[in-house]
């Protein structure tokens, strides 16, 4: 049964000022429409330029459910293509990353392509002479995605030919990526290892919303962070120094008042972050030698500005979250309406002490791994919601905390840190980017 089709009014009707209809999480048709409209209309994170260090390096990814491949060309430029041979559709790159040498060669019939995607050679090419081949799409080589922006080595792409430009789409929200990169004394990040991957049996948006949900940690994570504090208090003996592990778990149990004052900042197009004044990452121990390196690189004032900005979670709509202070990016990759692959990447601050990378890796395995007790707490909640939302008794999800009537959308604002306004912000963007390429987009219909 087609309920929503390409009807922007029906889709827009799922998002009220401070409520959303459960179909956004459980209806397979809505998921299909997200793949067809929301993801192509949005700027999606593809990978990091450090993964394409040398000519011929490539990485593969999915945008929505469409496979893409990014490559470093001989002239140093980065290109992005749909990952299919123009001949029969075979994926030309099957591994997450690698080096293809001077060209991509399809393993099926040996069609080959330069690393800028252009057609290099076809065996027995004369078989295509006089067939009209030069007028086909295949003659152009790999289908290119033209809207690609590499911002401080972060590669983003928009599949739609038309839409909101990169600068307008992200605006001031890029300041979190800036802060993460600036935390390297050389102003450079590097991916040096594979991500932690964790399969979630829930809708991808539950994960995204949870990133700015500051009223759940002290409740849902009492079992993990609360136990960590309890065991440490009992076992610490005469130890003066709190171990790194307890420093990472402990702040999850901060009281509501802490999150209220730390604040949330929202930006247009669904982006926003927790931890404006301070955050759960504020009180980690100093790492020997690091401040000195930063002061030498940036000067006293600027170094303290950079390190004083300890934002908690920044959501880049639709589906990534960045933690500048611990150099982590979580990619919430939609697989099905009730299935989401979470890839959590750690970036190494080039030139900074090993200890910072050690701490970031530790945070990642404590919080973002399938073996993470904090992850177990969260996934249990998502799974229960995915089940609970099937009930018909109440078909609306309530996002009304600190709602004010007449709340403006697509603005920049700093608000109380326990507000659900960032979730409302995301859903406003959701309706907008779902319908902007339909006949009557939601904005125009209002």
């Amino acid at each position, binding site marked *: 049964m087609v309920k929503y089709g390409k009807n922007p009014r029906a889709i827009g009707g799922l998002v009220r000022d401070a409520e959303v209809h459960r179909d956004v999480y459980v209806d397979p048709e809505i998921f299909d429409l997200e793949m067809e409209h929301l993801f192509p209309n949005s700027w999606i994170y593809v990978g990091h330029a450090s993964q394409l260090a040398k000519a011929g390096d490539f990485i593969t990814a999915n945008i929505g459910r469409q496979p893409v491949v990014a490559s470093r060309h001989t002239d140093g430029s980065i290109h992005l293509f749909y990952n299919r041979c123009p001949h029969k559709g075979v994926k030309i790159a099957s591994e997450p990353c690698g080096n293809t040498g001077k060209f991509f060669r399809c393993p099926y019939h040996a069609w080959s392509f330069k690393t800028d995607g252009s057609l290099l050679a076809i065996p027995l090419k004369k078989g295509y002479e006089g067939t009209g081949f030069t007028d086909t799409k295949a003659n152009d080589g790999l289908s290119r995605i033209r809207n690609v922006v590499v911002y401080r080595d972060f590669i983003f792409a928009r599949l739609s030919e038309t839409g909101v430009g990169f600068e307008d789409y992200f605006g001031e929200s890029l300041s979190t990526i800036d802060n993460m990169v600036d935390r390297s004394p050389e102003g450079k990040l590097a991916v040096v*290892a*594979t*991500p*932690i*991957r*964790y*399969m*979630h*049996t829930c809708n991808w948006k539950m994960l995204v919303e949870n990133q700015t949900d500051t009223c759940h940690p002290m409740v*849902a994570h*009492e*079992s*993990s962070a*609360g*136990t*960590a504090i*309890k*065991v*440490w208090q009992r*076992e610490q003996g005469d130890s003066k120094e709190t*171990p790194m*592990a*307890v420093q990472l*778990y402990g702040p999850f149990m901060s009281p509501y008042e802490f999150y209220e004052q730390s604040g949330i900042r929202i930006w247009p197009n669904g982006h926003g972050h927790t931890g404006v004044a301070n955050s759960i990452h504020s009180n980690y121990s100093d790492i020997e030698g690091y401040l000195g390196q930063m002061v030498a690189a940036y000067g006293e004032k600027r170094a303290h500005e950079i390190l004083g900005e300890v934002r908690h979670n920044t959501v880049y709509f639709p589906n990534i979250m960045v933690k500048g202070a611990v150099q982590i990016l979580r990619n919430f990759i939609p697989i099905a309406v009730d299935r989401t*692959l*979470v*890839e959590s990447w*750690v970036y190494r601050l080039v030139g900074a002490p*090993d200890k910072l*990378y*050690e701490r970031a*890796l530790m945070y*990642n*395995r404590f919080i973002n*791994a*399938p*073996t993470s*007790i904090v*992850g*177990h*707490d969260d*996934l*249990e*909640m998502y799974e*229960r919601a995915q089940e609970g939302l099937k009930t018909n008794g109440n078909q609306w999800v309530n996002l009304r905390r600190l709602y004010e009537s007449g709340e403006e959308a697509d603005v920049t604002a700093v608000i109380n840190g326990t507000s659900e306004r960032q979730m409302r912000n995301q859903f406003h963007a959701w309706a907008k980017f779902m319908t902007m390429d339909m006949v009557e987009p939601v904005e125009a219909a209002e």
Partner: protein
Amino acid sequence: MISEKTITDFVYLEADLLDTMQWQAWLDLFHPEGRYWMPLEWQQQDPVLQPSLMYEDLLLMKVRIERLAGERTFSQKPKSRCHHLLQAPQIVACDPAAGIFKARTSFIYTETRGDTLERFSGWASHDLVQVGDDLKIRLKRIDLVNFDAPFGNIQLFM
């Protein structure tokens, strides 16, 4: 005198304590500086500067175990159970004079909760030391055959 059989028996006992959820007895098998490690890379060398799924000392293992019994540990309602199927351990080193005792054991591990059941295959490496008359775990290392696959929850110890 510690023999190869002592090592083999130790490996079987250790798995049995996990399967029967005798957590305190299991923790008691560890040396105070013992570690439990699940690497995330093939033939990984470094647990600290390379990503791992787990690299835990006794403090972290105690947190994990106490959490399992917590009143507000909702991911354990219902509780998980596990089963270790072990191949005969291969003795990698048994050198009482040097105090080096190592075994590598191929396994299939099953973890179940409610109606779900997940299976994992890999190798467990035991790096043991002698303390008094007993062996203690210096390092238990779990290398899954598909270490880099996206798993759902793994809540117990392999």
